């Protein structure tokens, strides 16, 4: 068994070996610039790009013409949110809505728009991490131009009701964007059915390479965007810049494999996740964060009460996991997602996100359970709070003296 055990598939996934094999020829012999129209090197590259575009579209029930390649989901989110809000602000208004538990790649563009004179509403989810249609309805205004709600939360894995939200937005003529970076391959997505106008994708969360993503931009009814990157007019003029053929090929292959294997793979992953949950629930005072039903099978986020977060991370170095999302884990702030669910700072700090994937084995999970059982016991042995708790003292009633 290779240590540390990788249980951080929501941060990034290994490139599937089949994907890597498919990419390599486009790094070596078929290296042409897809924009080169005067020779076979260029045509071969362009053909590969179009084939990949088809695979990406197929996984999500889209037309390949609706798929724009970007450098990643962060860029896709920026392009969708700033591009659509700015394009339609003049005709529709300057009110935008999202959820307080979105990824920074959605929240930061929202903040930028606020600085540019937009008004934003941030919906707070219920304690289970989900928002309700009524909440959204109450927040809608005549000048609401854009709603952005993620399909799957990166920290707690809950699935937002995007189908219902889509219906509502379409009915009101509001543009609906969905960050689906954490959703592809984990849950079915059918853009032919969903009333979604813009959807962001990432390759490296679905066993493709880093540095490539896509934005679905609906053409019927047609959604228009202000481009964020200008130049040679690549990608329908929405995103200029030389297309990184090998990365696009990698994304295509990764999404092709996901479509083919997700049904069986997700059952296996669910079984592993449930095994992990069952094992960890033998530890006292553990709290699962986020709804367990409306959730992708890959994610388990648990808070361990009476354990200090940093010590816990240090104690379980044999596991590569996240405490809070990878993108914000450089800060010691407790996860804003867990805080939004109403978790205390202590529980937010002592939370671990386990994310399971294609190469996780039963042995990995069993090792993780055993390790956590042992280490948490040890840490609690050293904790005066745990001792008080075991003595039956209600800690919430204790008046701590300042000193």
């Amino acid at each position, binding site marked *: 068994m290779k240590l*540390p055990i*990788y249980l*951080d598939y929501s*941060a*990034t*996934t290994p*490139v599937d*070996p089949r994907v*890597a094999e498919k990419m*390599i020829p486009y*790094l*070596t012999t078929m*290296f*042409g610039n897809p*924009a*080169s*129209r*005067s*020779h*076979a*090197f260029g045509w071969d590259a362009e053909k590969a790009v179009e084939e990949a575009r088809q695979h990406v579209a197929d996984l999500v029930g889209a037309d390949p013409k609706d798929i724009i390649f970007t*450098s*990643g989901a*962060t*860029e896709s*989110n*920026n392009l969708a949110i700033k591009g659509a809000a700015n394009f339609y602000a003049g005709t529709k208004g300057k009110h935008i809505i999202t959820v307080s538990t979105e990824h*920074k*790649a*959605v*929240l*930061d*563009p929202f903040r930028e728009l606020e600085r540019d004179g937009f008004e934003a509403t941030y919906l707070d989810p219920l304690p289970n991490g989900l928002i309700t249609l009524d909440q959204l309805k109450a927040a809608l205004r005549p000048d609401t131009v854009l709603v952005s709600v993620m399909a799957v939360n990166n920290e707690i894995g809950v699935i937002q009701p995007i189908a219902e939200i889509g219906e509502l937005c379409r009915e009101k003529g509001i543009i609906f964007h969905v960050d689906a970076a954490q959703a592809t391959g984990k849950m079915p997505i059918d853009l032919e059915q969903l009333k979604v106008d813009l959807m962001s994708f990432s390759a*490296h969360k679905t066993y493709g*390479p*880093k*540095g*490539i993503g896509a934005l679905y931009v609906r053409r019927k009814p047609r959604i228009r965007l202000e481009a*964020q*990157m*200008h*130049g*040679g*007019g*690549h990608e329908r003029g929405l995103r*200029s*810049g*030389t*297309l*990184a053929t*090998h*990365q696009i090929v990698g994304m295509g292959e990764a999404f092709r494999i996901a479509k083919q294997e997700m049904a069986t793979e997700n059952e296996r992953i669910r079984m592993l996740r449930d095994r992990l949950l069952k094992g960890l629930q033998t530890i006292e005072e553990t709290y699962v964060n986020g709804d367990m039903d409306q959730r992708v099978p890959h994610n388990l986020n648990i808070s361990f009460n009476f354990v200090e977060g940093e010590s816990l991370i240090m104690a379980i*170095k044999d*596991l*590569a996991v*996240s405490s809070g999302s*990878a*993108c914000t*884990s*450089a800060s010691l702030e407790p996860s804003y997602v867990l805080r939004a669910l109403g978790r205390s700072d202590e529980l937010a700090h002592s939370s671990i996100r386990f994310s399971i994937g294609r190469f996780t084995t039963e042995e990995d999970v069993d090792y993780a359970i055993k390790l956590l059982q042992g280490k948490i016991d040890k840490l609690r042995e050293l904790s005066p709070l745990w001792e008080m708790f075991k003595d039956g003292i209600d800690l919430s009633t204790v008046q701590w003296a300042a000193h």
Partner: protein
Amino acid sequence: MFAPAYLDYNATTPLEPAVLDAMLPYLRQQYGNASSRHEYGRAARKAIDEARQQVAHAVGAHPTEVVFTSGGSEANNLFIKGAAANLKPGLVAISSIEHPCVREPAKELKRRQGWAMHEIAVDAAGRIEAADYADALAHSPKLISVMRANNETGVLQDVAALAEQARFTRAWFHSDAVQALGKIPLDFRTLNAAGVHGLTVSAHKIGGPKGAAALVVDKRVEIAPLISGGGHERGLRSGTENVAAIVGFGVACQIAVQRLDSEPQRLRALRDVLEQGLVQQGACIFGADAPQRLPNTVYFSIPGIDGETLVGKLDRVGFAVASGAACSSANPEPSHVLLAMGVEGEIARGAVRISLGAASMPQQVKDFLVALDGMVVQLKGLTALVT
């Protein structure tokens, strides 16, 4: 099957084998997200730090001045729009021969942000025209962008002198050096001392992978990010780092700099043979009168012969060349670079670009000239029949 001769290095380059070797571990076992705190993440972070040093070293910059982006287009957009976002609208001056990924962002400032735009004229050799440049400076531009080497003609601009001359305007001065890296020495320290504040370089033009590039930028320039969300790259460029491509970029830079001692001379010798042969076949060479050009680029037109037709025929016999910049090849309009140089439309439509690189060999050049000779005779015969 025969292996076609790739003579389009300014469009993109084949990957150096050592670059592939360096990248592969990051497409296989070293797959961490550089923002993760565990071992996988730290290994990725370390690899990026090392690549940043390699890139910085290659362009004579400090590693903290290197901002990784997804490509040269993004880096150019980042400087122009990012710097403009923190300035009151004013004049943006760019050369009239810039790549679309400089020209279009500048136009965007004009269209949406209330900026004025001046396109600095060039002379017949493709060099910035002194009088027009002085005129532009007299109008106090706030942003200036002049490319170090032109992608079509290979003509070099004396960017250091231009920046020095612009110093009194206190404008931010940027230079797109995508085509210069690896072909001529680049030193951001010297350029920065002369008043250049930003430099764009890209991996896939120097034997590195597509999908990685950098904006090398003076920290005094306040840049607003184009892509936000997570605060990567000192907050200037959010998004999970493309570790494999960045690692490849670093190694490609290292190789390119090592080869600067000998490779430019080798390519220049090949280019001279090529140009002599072309002139003998009646071609005019664009930019040939410029005092300084890239050693690898030949841009020519044979009067009476259409460029598109010629590159199509060349492709069929195994020579991959370009009929203008790759990015605008879909566009049947004659090259804006040639028009800016005052080249007449018919001649401009005949433009063909050959750009040499690591795998270019003397035999290929000889074979190319022989093949071209046959085509010229044939095509001119056809033209004679038509007229």
